[in-house]
């Protein structure tokens, strides 16, 4: 797992596939309000990009996230979610009351949509980083042998 399965076919198809996967992940994230989708699915898709890089190019892949970094990033992702909830307390509402977010919009309902987008971004980051982190932890054992 640390060396990757690189070969010319894999490398080429990897180069074609990964940008689409990442863009599709972001599409699923921002489109979650209008169609089936949302943070969890988007996170899994984004993680696929990183996991593919690991599988094809090995641990030295150009875009790779180290396991420990992934864990910290996962914490930050969930923290974004909690922080959005906590910020509404500071602006005078209840926890997670998106209606109190300090943005100018013409319809108060849109504040809710903005808040949802914010927390979905947090969820995406957490899911992506956790999947990468778990992969890293599971394959680390192979270093020892």
């Amino acid at each position, binding site marked *: 797992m640390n060396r990757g399965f690189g070969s010319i076919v894999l490398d080429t198809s990897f180069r074609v596939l990964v940008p689409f996967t990442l863009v599709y992940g972001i599409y699923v994230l921002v489109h979650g309000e*209008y*169609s*089936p989708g949302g943070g*969890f699915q988007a996170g899994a898709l984004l993680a696929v990009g990183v996991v593919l890089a690991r599988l094809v190019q090995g641990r030295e892949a150009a875009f790779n996230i180290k396991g420990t970094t992934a864990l910290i990033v996962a914490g930050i992702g969930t923290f974004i979610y909690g922080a959005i909830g906590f910020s509404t307390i500071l602006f005078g509402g209840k926890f997670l009351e998106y209606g109190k977010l300090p943005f100018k919009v013409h319809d108060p309902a849109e504040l809710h949509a903005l808040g949802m987008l914010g927390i979905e971004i947090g969820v995406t980051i957490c899911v992506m980083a956790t999947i990468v982190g*778990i992969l890293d*932890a*599971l394959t680390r*054992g192979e270093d020892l042998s």
Partner: protein
Amino acid sequence: MIQEFLAGSLIYWLIAILFLLGIYGILDNNNFMKKLMAMNIMQVAVILFFLVLGQKSGGTLPIMIGHDNNVDLYINPLPHALMLTAIVVSLSTTGVALALLMRIQDHYGEIEEDDILRRMNK
């Protein structure tokens, strides 16, 4: 009568059988990996049960078509939202269990419950 049963409540019996199969699998198997798979079957049964509760004949996906918010048009979105949570929980549990199994396999060289317990309490 029988038709109503088949269309209306048979699914509850099937879900109960699936759930109990999962539990029997956990109790009966000796191999930790098989137990884990049985655990997943059990969790799927619970998820199915909730999704069945959200069903409504004539209803469609709970995504608004135009601005039509007629209640009869859409199925109940609440169980779907709840089960997204339950699915994620079941996934996390499985992940942690697999990590534990890797440790057990590393240390004991096997994942048969009898043997491991005997060696543990020696």
